[in-house]
């Protein structure tokens, strides 16, 4: 089942949670809604599920109007961040719930319910826990049961709200790979909300980056990471160095040089206020002066696992550069040393009308 979202808007009092959202989710895709807290991603998911009503706009399921359908008529599976398992029911009864509440005519016979629930529990590899209660399970187990429960009614769309948000890092990594495999086996459309860029980039077919109630960019994980459409996306996906071209003449030059190479999108200003974005691993350090290189001094060098992070200062600005271990050994950098920086890939945007500090994880 495909989902189409047409001009959805939602306000909470004066707060605009969603502003004229347009989004198509084709059948069979696994889509991530990615953005910082308060960007409206969960609200959008809840509107798709019918748990929240939009102030304006339409939701279409497979081309048919679904805006006014009640949550129970939408045939969507919803998985909550905190699982929302029924505490007083065993694992088995939790999964069976959706089948048991069907109208009598559609309700499968008891043997069929039993078979389907056990199949689902096997699918999530927890059939040995059928008689336990939710409070006797670990977080990861609970989330898998919540998934099995949502799948029991054979939904055509699976919606997951920060499904791994409450789990620790190791379990989270395991579960998201497992979700990817599950999605491929079930042939359904899935939408999941996350604020974790790594999770979105790893699992999803397409990533929808949201900020302040608007969609900033829609694209494959590779597209949004290597070719961010807006400064926000650039900052939200990974670490980045930001240069104001007016202040740093040398880098504006580099920016323009980049523009010649086609890295700067059309419409980017060649003159005036502009910002240049460079990822830390897209900067080379040279020990001798290079044409257009930015002279700076080494402040600190940290070896972090496979990479070496170098902090440098140009005037009062701090610049972060990531090198491979080999390159770092080659350079043998010391604190206070003068070096020259050369960007390999730069992206220039017009200076924003609003400050950028929101998001920007990791800087």
């Amino acid at each position, binding site marked *: 089942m495909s989902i189409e979202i*047409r*001009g959805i808007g939602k306000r909470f009092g004066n707060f605009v949670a969603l502003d004229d959202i347009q989004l198509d989710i084709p059948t069979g895709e696994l889509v991530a809604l990615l953005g910082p*807290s*308060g960007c409206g*991603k*969960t609200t959008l998911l809840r509107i798709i*599920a*019918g*748990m*929240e*009503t*939009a*102030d*304006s*706009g*339409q939701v279409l399921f497979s081309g048919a109007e679904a*805006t*006014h359908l*009640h*949550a*129970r008529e939408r045939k969507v599976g919803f998985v909550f961040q905190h699982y929302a398992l029924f505490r007083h029911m065993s694992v088995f009864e939790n999964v069976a719930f959706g089948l048991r509440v069907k109208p009598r005519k559609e309700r499968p016979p008891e043997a069929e319910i039993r078979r389907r629930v056990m199949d689902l529990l096997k699918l999530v590899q927890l059939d040995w826990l059928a008689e336990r209660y939710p409070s006797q399970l670990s977080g990861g187990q609970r989330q898998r049961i919540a998934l099995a429960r949502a799948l029991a009614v054979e939904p055509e769309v699976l919606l997951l709200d*920060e499904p791994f*948000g409450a789990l620790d890092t190791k379990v989270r990594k395991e579960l998201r790979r497992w979700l990817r495999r599950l999605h491929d086996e079930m042939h359904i459309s899935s939408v999941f*909300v996350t*604020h974790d860029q790594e999770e979105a980039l790893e699992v999803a077919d397409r990533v929808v980056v949201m900020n302040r109630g608007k969609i900033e960019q829609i694209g494959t994980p590779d597209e949004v990471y290597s070719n961010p459409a807006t400064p926000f996306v650039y900052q939200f996906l990974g670490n980045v160095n930001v240069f104001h071209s007016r202040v740093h003449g040398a880098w504006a030059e580099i920016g323009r040089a980049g523009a010649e190479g086609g890295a700067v999108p059309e419409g980017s200003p060649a003159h005036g206020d502009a910002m240049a974005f460079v990822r830390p691993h897209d900067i080379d350090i040279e020990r001798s002066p290079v044409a257009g290189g930015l002279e700076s001094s080494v402040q600190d060098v940290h070896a972090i696992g496979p990479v070496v992070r170098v902090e440098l200062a140009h005037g009062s600005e701090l610049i972060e550069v990531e090198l491979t271990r080999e390159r770092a050994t080659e350079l043998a950098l010391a604190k206070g040393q003068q070096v020259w920086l050369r960007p390999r890939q730069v992206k220039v945007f017009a200076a924003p009308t609003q400050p950028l500090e929101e998001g920007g994880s990791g800087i």
Partner: protein
Amino acid sequence: MSATGSLSVRKATAEPRWVRWTLTAVGLGFLFFFLGLPLLAVFVEAFAAGMPKYLEALADPEARSAIWLTLFVALFVLPFNVIFGVAAAWAIAKFEFRGKSLLVTLIDLPFAVSPVVAGLVFILIFGAQGVFGPWLAAHDIKVVFALPGIIIATLFITFPFVARELIPLMQAQGKDEEEAAVSLGATGWQMFRRVTLPNIKWGLLYGVILANARAMGEFGAVSVVSGHIRGETNTLPLHVEILYNEYNQVGAFASASVLALLALVTLVAKTVVEWRMRKETETLDAALPPEKTE
């Protein structure tokens, strides 16, 4: 799609409108007949014969002595309840010891025991045929059918209120702050004055309000031990009973209206304190760094 269209959609977790309205009507109707109407009736009956009769009934010397006795008893038991409540809550909430749950159950006992049984128990101890009866008589000390009996019965009935309010509160607060105070060199009293007391003051006040309402309104236990001596051992609730049984409707309801007024003051005070307590926890939460809001 227009904005008006979405109004017809019900939230996933709301009942249909007719269900909401029916339940609200049933709930409010029930409260009106069982709580609102009786409260209204007290005042209507009290003023049924007009203001002069009402004031006359309250100016009656027996009524006035009953009011004074009630106030005196309530004030007298107050410090006992506060000290017991704080001491019991301190021991129970901040320390681990064997038999703690038994102790908590014992504190609940006056809530479970019929007030009549509570009164009777004191007759069996201090009454003429009681355990200490002969000794008390020999020394010419009157407990039962006198003020001491009323006070003891009231103490029994009211002692759990403050403790019951403070125990969960102090358990929830934990002992980190007190331990910090001690580690910074505070003496026991300084720690209590400056750390514990500010944290529990609203809960303490809440317990005192409830205990006080019960102290002024207690009927069963006091009725058994007081002996109903007019102008001497008649508390206001007992005075109400006597007048009512004498078919002095206006007099009974005039005194009852004073008690109802006290009840209303209690409800207002209780609501205000609840509101303060909630506000305090809210500001505490607000002071913490915001969690993820979505």
